[in-house]
């Protein structure tokens, strides 16, 4: 590999990692600004770095994986060739021959402007071909109806518990605010879209899909279990026990289920299947856990309790610790699990090769 390629690779990695770091840096800077004292700010910074670490590591793994495929090829191309390669990558299988034809023909075009012109024109043709020159075959809605039903029902559960909170806790809607409500609606809509129109890359492994969904049920079941295990009494010991139970769910259970599920499926099938497991697990788990969390909070603070106003805070917490925490904290561990399984498989392949040669 040339030195130029290595530099491009490094630049791509740093750009992607920088973008991920920025996603954490914005809320981190807001939270650090809010407090006072250098010690407190240092603690906040360390906490955010700790939260960001799995995402950064998982991003590093994904970029490395991508680089061994199309990334490496792209790095050796000039701008027009790169543009065309990206445009033709999504062409349907029955048009792949034309994709190769366009790319091969570009090698014959001389001159910078002529190359750009050719690449832009053929990229347009590639996009037309993606939509289908012939009457396009209608894309099936919900290629896995059972999985779609589960996710849609889970979303319905989230909406129902939120609506119940809005109706029976009058100050909740006002305190929750339109920004959080919009984020909540966007996340739920995204989940419905993923369930009904999942990309092909999320549907190739039946095992990955169902183990992921089962993992989601396990996680929300564990959350429900923690509610029954919560100590009755108050005081420092009780609060500490409650915090410990919650942490066991948010950190240990989530990480363990995501990591092991993806590791198992990737070991049985492939890295991609492992990623699918992690995505389905995170999606199902976060939706079901949101509803469970809301029900737990409503049991704790009934509408006629002396502190019904806390429900807005409870709703925010439920949203953050499930709908945001699951994908941000749990999903990276799923990716790492899938990647680790890939390492194991490569070792096995190496071992098999040695055995074969011997």
């Amino acid at each position, binding site marked *: 590999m040339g030195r130029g390629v290595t530099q491009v690779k490094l630049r791509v990695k740093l750009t992607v990692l920088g973008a991920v770091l920025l996603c954490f840096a914005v809320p981190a800077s807001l939270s650090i600004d809010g407090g006072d004292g250098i010690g407190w700010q240092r603690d906040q910074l360390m906490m955010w770095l700790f939260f960001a670490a799995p995402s950064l590591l998982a991003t590093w793994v994904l970029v490395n994986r991508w680089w061994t495929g199309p990334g490496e090829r792209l790095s050796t191309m000039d701008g027009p060739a790169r543009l065309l390669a990206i445009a033709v990558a999504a062409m349907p299988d029955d*048009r792949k*021959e*034309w994709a*190769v*034809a*366009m*790319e*091969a*023909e570009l*090698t*014959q*075009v001389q001159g910078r402007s002529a190359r750009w*012109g*050719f690449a*832009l*024109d*053929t*990229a*347009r*043709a590639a996009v*037309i*071909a993606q939509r289908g*020159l*012939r*009457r396009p075959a209608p894309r099936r809605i919900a290629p896995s109806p059972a999985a779609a039903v589960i996710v849609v029902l889970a979303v319905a559960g989230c909406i129902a518990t939120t609506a119940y909170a809005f109706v029976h806790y009058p100050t909740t809607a006002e305190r929750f605010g339109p920004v959080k409500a919009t984020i909540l609606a966007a996340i739920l809509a995204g989940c419905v879209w993923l369930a009904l129109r999942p990309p092909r890359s999320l549907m190739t492994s039946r095992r990955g899909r169902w183990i992921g969904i089962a993992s989601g049920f396990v996680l929300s079941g564990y959350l429900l279990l923690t509610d029954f295990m919560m100590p009755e009494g108050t005081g420092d010991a009780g609060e500490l026990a409650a915090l410990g139970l919650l942490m066991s769910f948010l950190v240990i259970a989530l990480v363990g289920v995501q990591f092991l599920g993806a590791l198992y499926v990737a070991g049985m099938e492939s890295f991609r299947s492992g990623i699918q497991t992690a995505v389905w697990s995170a999606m199902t788990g976060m939706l079901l856990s949101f509803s469970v969390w809301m029900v737990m909070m409503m049991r704790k603070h009934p509408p006629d309790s002396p502190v019904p106003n806390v429900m807005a805070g409870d709703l925010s917490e439920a949203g953050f610790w499930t709908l945001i925490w699951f994908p941000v904290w749990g999903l990276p561990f799923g990716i790492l699990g899938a990647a680790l399984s890939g390492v194991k498989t490569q070792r096995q392949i190496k071992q098999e090769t040695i055995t074969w040669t011997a």
Partner: protein
Amino acid sequence: MAGTRRPSEQTIAVVLALAENPATWRYGYELCRQLGLKAGSMYTILMRLSDRGLVETAWETDAPPGRPARHLYRLTGPGAAMATEMAAARAKAGPAVARLRARWEGV
């Protein structure tokens, strides 16, 4: 209906260009330059003609090392028959079009 729609002027030009030497394999970029067509239009037309069995495709077999093999195109039997019809229709319409143009220009 798409199947019975009249071919566009650009499609006719491509078919007639391929019909100039029906036995010769042609390259996409070469056709673009000959006809002054944009590559996007050319490949869309070639894909459509190929889908309808009017153009056959092949890969270059003697590509020099280090260069990818190019895609080649020529008319099939039905494609050549269609080219003959198109040429005849164009020849018939030619004088009429010239007359209309002359009237329009007031000559």
